[in-house]
């Protein structure tokens, strides 16, 4: 039995494909595996969290208590876009959980980091890892800090920082 997704409410993701009742809905297992396979974020990172879908393919990560389904404005933060060819993590998720990433992280020099935060695309020919969505990071007071999500193709890093989050930073 398969239902359509109701985009107006929050539904908790099924644990695995066996428990899926809504067509096309990602499972918790797939989401956790994606973060582990793509970015090396350990699955245990999410042990205390639940994942939810509201809107078509918009996945939310939440640490509080709630019953499913749920009709409210928001829970936790949006973390991932599914229901498209390539899944895409959000800037806010990457800033919150991206420190745990060990793969597909591109380190930017200060000027590159500023351009990225301002939303600019830039030629960065030195990346020899996988193409696709990467975590862009820079050095903050001696430690690596994720800035947001970039799309890397054909030697170009496109900033995926949403308009409302873009900033012109001075230094």
């Amino acid at each position, binding site marked *: 039995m398969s239902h359509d997704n109701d985009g107006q409410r929050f539904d908790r993701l099924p644990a695995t494909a066996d428990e899926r009742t809504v067509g096309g809905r990602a499972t918790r297992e797939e989401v956790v595996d994606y973060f582990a396979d793509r970015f090396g974020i350990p699955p245990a990172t999410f042990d205390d969290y639940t994942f939810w879908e509201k809107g078509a393919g918009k996945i939310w990560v939440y640490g509080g208590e709630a019953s499913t389904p749920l009709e409210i404005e928001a829970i936790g933060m949006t973390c991932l876009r599914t229901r498209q060819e390539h899944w895409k993590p959000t800037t806010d998720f990457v800033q919150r959980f991206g420190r745990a990433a060990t793969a597909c992280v591109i380190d930017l020099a200060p000027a590159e980091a500023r351009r990225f935060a301002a939303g600019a695309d830039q030629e960065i020919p030195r990346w020899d890892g996988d193409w696709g969505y990467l975590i862009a990071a820079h050095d903050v*007071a001696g430690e690596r800090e994720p800035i947001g999500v970039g799309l890397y193709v054909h030697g170009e890093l496109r900033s995926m920082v949403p308009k409302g989050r873009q900033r012109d930073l001075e230094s």
Partner: protein
Amino acid sequence: MEPLERYRPIIDDFEDFLAACQRPLGNAVRVNTIKASVDRALAALEAEGLAYEQADWNPRVLDLETDAPGSTWTSFHGFTHGQEEVSAVPPVVLDPQPGERVWDCCAAPGGKATQLAALMDDRGTVVANDNNLGRISALRFNAERLGATSLAVTNEDARNYSLERFEFDEFDRTLVDAPCSCEGTIRKNPDALDNWSEGHVSSVAGIQKGIIRRAIQATREGGTVVYSTCTFAPEENEAVVQHAVDEEDCRVVDFALELEHAPGLTEWDGRSFDSSLEKAARIYPHHNDTGGFFVAKLEVTA
């Protein structure tokens, strides 16, 4: 400044008070410990060449020397959040603990709600509610930028709030940072007193009474409710708390606050209040060079 004249009898050093109300405020930010420890946030500010001063009463509150506090890496990363110094007081007085269920019933734009989540190490449940849909988007934006994953956002009138949607039926603690006449924000917003009238004070007090009553009803016995406003009007402060004490099962309790303040009033305009109202705090702009605030702490009784 004329509406403030009515407070001449109750405020010490009234001329100092008026003078302070005319001075602009600096740029205060709160360190968001969900994203960074205080040490790391300070190191990041130093790396950016930004000077700061930590508040004596709270190492997480900083006065930042910059004209553009939103255009810094620390802000972009959510290490810091622009929030007035006195506005950081009510969540500290509420003192939420990791794992608890906490309600912020008038939460937008989210500075205090995210501060509550941070004080709980982002573990537990913070229900951030606001009745104004337009302000909800600012609340959501701030919650996500600051990385609060324990926060659920609802859009209801707090006066008749239902918990049916959740798996629990009462909160451990509730913050009522009530909509008010905002007299205490005059240093940030010079227009704050433009629409002042006794009629406005009286109508907003009616709403405040409805919200504080629902907050007490929705909080468990032994739980805590903090009532705060950014105004000086006793009609919106002591009188509202007095109404709550009269109508609901609760009592006013003491709290420590290492910020200079005056006690709550036991008398205003020919009306007297319960002596326990002295346990509330009136924070005036000339005391600590901040905005103005009122804070009262209540314990829910049987």
